[in-house]
């Protein structure tokens, strides 16, 4: 039976222009793929997509599809216009967790592509916004076959629904000199501790881990993660004064003043008369700007650790929230350090699972109950620290009859730290 070809005048417009065209790619599957099934599915998909372009509406609805043993990881899609476009009426996406940092050998990409060609549409994306490899378009039956296939050679599903989601980390220590932590190691330690919570959605809503190796936060962790880990350092920035001089010689003093010293948010960097620089490390907030401008001359210090911020998310339901500091600095070197951070994550998720409302992100719960109730409620020692706030309280409407005990706790903690 010859496949049906739909007219796609609007989509055809997207084959013009110099940027690579996803429409040309789908058409190639329709026209040139040796397998009739893929030709038919992609032809039908193009038909439905053209219909969306003409009517400015989407026609996919969700449903319930999973693989044996799991409750999530598949984005089910059933067409609402399946009678008009029958070959793609079931078109589920399979979310697969990428390797930490998104590295692939071509051999592995080919193997994944071959498996998907066997059971799915032949369309895939590296990666979706939650960080998964998205294998786009298969039937309920194909879902199980494809999963069985790739799971046997080392790949697992990601999160979908109210669960711990696939984690993300920047390229970090694999290539970047700004990296202050083992992003990939922590990424895997964290998310792989929660595989049960990834595969069997049972939380109030989604929970995301993201790890960035430095405060440039290329992974958008503070904006987008419930649990953001950002690499940083607490000793002195490393300065190669010869490279500083070379930079000044190449760019000129004016450039350095305009683009380095005056851009420092805490005025912590000075250009000296001899074309070296001095950094006030106590007042440097590790913003990264000067390191970004002068990557040969300036480097993070050696006493690495991480800052942990909790509660980042986008609009729904109460508005955008950035993650906020819960742990200003934590060393991350020994096995115990990693175990501690995993334990902290467990306790935070437990507390939120217990106290979060349905469809309430962790940050929204904190907004509702207040940071102090969160810190005190979580079954993990989260020491109060002025780094948690931009400024102390403005409102006098607070009952403070526990002041003396709280002050004593502070002094005791200080004494312990000094001991």
């Amino acid at each position, binding site marked *: 039976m010859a496949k049906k070809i739909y007219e796609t005048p609007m989509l055809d417009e997207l084959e013009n222009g110099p940027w690579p065209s996803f429409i040309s790619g789908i058409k190639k599957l329709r026209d040139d793929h040796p397998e009739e099934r893929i030709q038919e599915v992609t032809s039908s998909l193009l038909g439905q997509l053209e219909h969306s372009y003409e009517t400015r509406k989407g026609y996919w609805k969700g449903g319930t599809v999973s693989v044996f043993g799991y409750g999530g990881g598949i984005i089910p899609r059933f067409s609402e216009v399946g009678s008009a476009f029958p070959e793609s009426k079931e078109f589920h996406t399979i979310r697969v967790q990428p390797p930490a940092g998104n590295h692939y050998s071509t051999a592995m990409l080919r193997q994944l592509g071959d498996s998907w060609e066997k059971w799915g549409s032949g369309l895939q994306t590296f990666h979706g916004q939650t960080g998964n490899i998205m294998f786009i378009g298969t039937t309920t039956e194909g879902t199980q076959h494809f999963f069985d296939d790739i799971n046997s050679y080392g790949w697992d599903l990601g999160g979908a629904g109210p669960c711990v989601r696939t984690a993300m980390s920047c390229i970090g220590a694999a290539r970047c000199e700004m990296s202050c932590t083992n992003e990939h190691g922590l990424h*895997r330690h964290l998310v792989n501790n929660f595989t049960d919570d990834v595969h069997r959605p049972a939380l109030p809503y989604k929970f995301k881990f993201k790890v960035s190796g430095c405060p440039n936060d290329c992974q958008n962790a503070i904006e987008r993660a419930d649990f953001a880990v950002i690499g940083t350092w607490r000793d002195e920035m490393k300065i190669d004064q010869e490279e500083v001089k070379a930079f000044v010689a190449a760019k000129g003093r004016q450039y350095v003043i305009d683009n380095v010293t005056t851009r420092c948010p805490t005025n912590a960097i000075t250009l000296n008369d001899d074309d070296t620089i001095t950094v006030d490390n106590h007042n440097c907030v590790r913003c990264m700007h000067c390191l970004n401008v002068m990557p040969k001359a300036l480097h993070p210090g050696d006493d690495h650790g991480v800052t942990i911020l909790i509660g980042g998310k986008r609009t729904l339901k109460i*508005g955008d929230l950035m993650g906020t500091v819960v742990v200003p600095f934590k060393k991350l070197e020994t096995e115990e350090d990693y175990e501690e951070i995993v334990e902290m994550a467990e306790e935070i998720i437990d507390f939120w699972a217990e106290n979060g409302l349905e469809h309430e992100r962790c940050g929204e719960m904190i907004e509702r109950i207040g940071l102090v109730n969160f810190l005190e409620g979580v079954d993990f020692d989260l020491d109060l620290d002025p780094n948690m706030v931009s400024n102390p309280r403005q409102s006098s409407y607070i009952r403070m009859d526990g002041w003396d005990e709280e002050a004593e706790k502070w002094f005791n903690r200080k004494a312990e730290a000094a001991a």
Partner: protein
Amino acid sequence: MSDKPRSPIESGCPDAFQYMHPTMRRNYGQWKFHEHPKPGVLRHVAYSGEEIWTVRCGTQRILDVFTLRKLCDIGDEYADGFIHFTIRSNVEYIVDDAAKVDPLIKAIEDAGFIVGGTKNSVAMISHTQGWLHCDIPGTDASGVVKSMMDELINEFRENNMPNRVHITTSCCQINCGGQGDIAINIQHTKPPKINHDLVSNVCERPSVVARCPVAAIRPAMVNGKPSLEVDEKKCICCGACFPPCPPMQINDAEHSKLAVWVGGNHSNARGKPTFQKLVAAGIPNNPPRWPEANAIVKRILQAYKDDAKDWERINDWIERIGWPRFFEKTGLPFTKYHIDNWRGARNSLNASTHIRF
């Protein structure tokens, strides 16, 4: 009788070291500095003295298996057999020898991919699934991005911007595309149209009521059937009720518009991270090429390129010149809709005499 189902191996996130270029593996955590020899190319040098060269290129992101294999062929023939994907879905080839860079660039370009996207360029637009696959989209994603990248291709290839520009698109107000220096997002302008015949069968009504950010939804009997009704005076047309209750259709061919937001910045560099702010709305959702949205994005980019200082991201630039000047320079109208009224809105008002003349 069917075979016994296979139990999954819950292996989770795979170890990346097995798929990492060996030079990166050997120098993990030991990198000293990087340089940017030309657009699309990065050179990283390790303390060991070893170095790697990265060539970044843009693709159509929705990859058919032929294109995936083409990318692998380039990797096998001209790179060292490894591919790294950036978080904005660019492909990066990594080689250990400067001599491999130019032949690699030629192979990438001959195959139709676009080298660039590094440093102070307009980076690849991060986007979502749209009409191709999402269940709640107000617009397409890949098509919008294709149209925009066709026009911004030189800004991707070159480094003419004051600092990097991250553009994002999102097909509903959930904003899966994320924060961006410039974000183009669907903004609905009319309350949902409710199919009362379906609500009681399809929707868990109390969760739908709870989902509404302004408590505008309440249970109601309509034509003798349990359904939901919307107080249209309270409704902010956000679409939050639509995912849990598809009979509350929010998408509208005419009234679902595009809005443009600017100044979202993930980085802690200079200032603290920032969220994007509304600058333009009421833009037609106009497939297949979205010319009106494109024109506004290009206008903002031009103003930024002309006026911002080196290293200023869009949020830094606006912070320096002030919002009145931003609206003046871009020619965009300032309306009552720009003044926030959501929780915390008072913090966005000007409680000072800091006014530029």
